[in-house]
């Protein structure tokens, strides 16, 4: 009898321990997501914004419109470019910090330096590009002053270039941190051994550093992809509200009180993002590598 109770208690303990987190996740994550899914099947009118119903209208309109595919394609393009640049820059900086800087205090000092931009808010960091890139901005004044161009360069602001620049500025740190972390775990002896065996710098990079930093790169990629896929602010401010992105479309729909189509759009966006991340997990098994 006591033994039986004992096992019951032992079984219950881990469940109880998991309960607080589970409750929070159910209340603040699973619940809202289910609500969004439910609303995406609702009907709506201008004067009655939520009419409980089960209709496919919102999905039909969404998936039947050419604009949707164009928008997703454009978001994917922004995502790919932002990913490429943050990864390249993030990897280079992490490599410099992990292998070139020998003293630990200097390493930590430089690493903290990378985080300085994060002392101000995302919004301010985004907006501060405007006086720099505008038609009468600093960059254009500089270029014209030196005589490189005679007319202001238009594509610097309110363009995809500006949006990607904003993303790279905002999100490179999300690459640096996990990659730097992965690189610090690489056993220096392995690199020395490779060098002793006559490997060139490129071979070391290709066969040792890249494979062993993969988990860091994968984690950084998840951050950047998720942030860019859901972004609407940077696109709005640096794209002059005219660069298409899914997040921006959803925000517009919410603004126009079209909740059910916004919900349908959000569901599709969530599915696409999850698929992207699942595909990524297939390439790199993060749990194993950690």
């Amino acid at each position, binding site marked *: 009898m006591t033994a039986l109770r004992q096992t019951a208690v032992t079984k219950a303990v881990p469940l109880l321990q998991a309960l607080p987190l589970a409750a929070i996740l159910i209340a603040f994550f699973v619940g809202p997501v289910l609500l969004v899914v439910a609303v995406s099947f609702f009907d709506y009118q201008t004067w009655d914004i939520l009419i409980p119903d089960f209709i496919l209208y919102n999905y039909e*309109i969404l998936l039947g419109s050419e604009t949707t595919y*164009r928008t997703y394609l454009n978001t994917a393009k922004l995502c790919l470019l932002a990913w490429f640049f943050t990864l390249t820059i993030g990897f280079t900086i992490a490599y410099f910090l992990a292998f070139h800087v020998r003293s630990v205090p200097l390493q930590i000092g430089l690493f903290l330096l990378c985080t300085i931009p994060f002392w101000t808010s995302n919004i301010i960091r985004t907006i501060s590009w405007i006086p720099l890139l*505008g038609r009468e901005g600093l960059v254009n004044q500089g270029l014209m002053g030196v005589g490189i161009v005679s007319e202001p360069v238009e594509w610097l602001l309110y363009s995809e270039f500006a949006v990607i620049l904003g993303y790279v500025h905002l999100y490179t740190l999300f690459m640096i941190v996990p990659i730097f972390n992965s690189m610090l775990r690489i056993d220096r002896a392995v690199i020395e051994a490779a060098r002793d065996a006559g490997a060139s710098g490129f071979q070391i990079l290709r066969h040792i550093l890249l494979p062993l930093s993969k988990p860091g790169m994968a984690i950084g990629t998840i951050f950047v992809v998720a942030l860019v896929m859901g972004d609407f602010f940077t696109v709005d401010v640096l794209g002059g509200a*005219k660069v298409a992105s899914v997040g921006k479309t959803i925000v517009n729909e919410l*603004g*126009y009180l079209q909740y059910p*189509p916004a919900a349908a759009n959000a569901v599709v966006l969530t599915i696409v993002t999850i698929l992207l991340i699942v595909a990524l997990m297939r390439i790199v098994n993060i749990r194993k590598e950690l």
Partner: protein
Amino acid sequence: MSYRKRSPFSTVYTRRDFVKTTALAGTAAAVSSFPAPFVHAQEAVTLRIAGTGVNAFNELAERALEELGINIEYIVLTSDDVVTRAITQPTSFDMIDSEYWMLAKIVPSGNLKGMDVSRIQYYDDIVPIFTRGELPDGTQMARQGTAPIKVSYLTAEESSTFAEEPTNFMTLIPTVYNADTLGIRPDLINRPIESWAELLNPEFAGKTAILDIPSIGIMDAAMVCESLGEIQYGDKGNMTRDEIDRTMAILTQAKRDGQFRAFWKEFNESVTLMASGEVVIQSMWSPAVTAVRQQGVPCVYQPLREGYRAWASGLGIPSHLSGRQLDAAYEFINWYLSGWVGAFLNRQGYYTAVLSTARENMTENEWNFWMEGEPAAEPIVSPTGTVIEEPGAVRDGGSFWERMGAVACWNSVMDEDRYMVRKWNEFIAA
């Protein structure tokens, strides 16, 4: 056109006015001689006003506290958010500062209380644009779009239906209204601009902007398409699906051709776009033009031959308000119409609901400049004290009559609103 010749504001003091003024003075005296302990026994009432901020000014709130003992708290939101709040969280505010087109969305929710006009002291003096759909001289006001008269009255105090004819229950008491047009940078354009069609002129490719609030942006777009001769609308303010499709096709093509530099949603964004020279011609609101000029940048609110797109906003009372707060709301509205606020807002370039009381609070020079369209005799000073116009300057577009008389349409919520908004969103994303 003879009405433009005579001055509409030459007020003749009638016996009625006299009686009214004396009665007012009497009331004021009665209030101030009220036993003080009674006044002190009650805490000051607080009214939270949700609105777009076009007429949310600290000066106004301070004055209301001083004169009425009412705490005014502004909740400043974007146009879209005002509608959302009014429909989904009507108890989160005590008064709403709403645009008239928003009513088409808000009133069906039943969240707005009809205001008893017998409690509005200056009701008879409100500009007839709102009470009869006419200009003060009796000419019919443009009715394309959500003209205020279409949504000014409710069938009953608790009602979610608009009344066809004036009743005793008003949806909003008008506060400010204006005739909007395109803003331009004359120094960067260097030639006369006379038509809405110029917004899509390839000459300004990459240097134009349009506002991204569907109910307003679609009307600017319609003015442009009509003036280009591309589309003849039955009613710009209530388009058919076909008209919407054709309008959005023209805009989308222009967007793909790089006509637009940006889209803006917020007043300040339009100021930045214009002042920085990113755009040279765009949709704009009158105080934004003033704000650009205050930075020393030339900017003109250009009158165009096809006329103006008008808007109006007013104060409304949500259904949940009762007791002392309800009384305070009426008191605040009566104070609002009594002159000081009207003068304050007229000096921003807006027009206000009761012109006669506003006039009493403005100097001759100010009145002539802002309302009569005459050259300034002395420097024109903004409410914050900066000189915004030198002597000799004339208001863009001229007098109240020339501007309000040339209104072609109003900001609008159409029958096909759901379709239009979806198409608009596709245009923004295209």
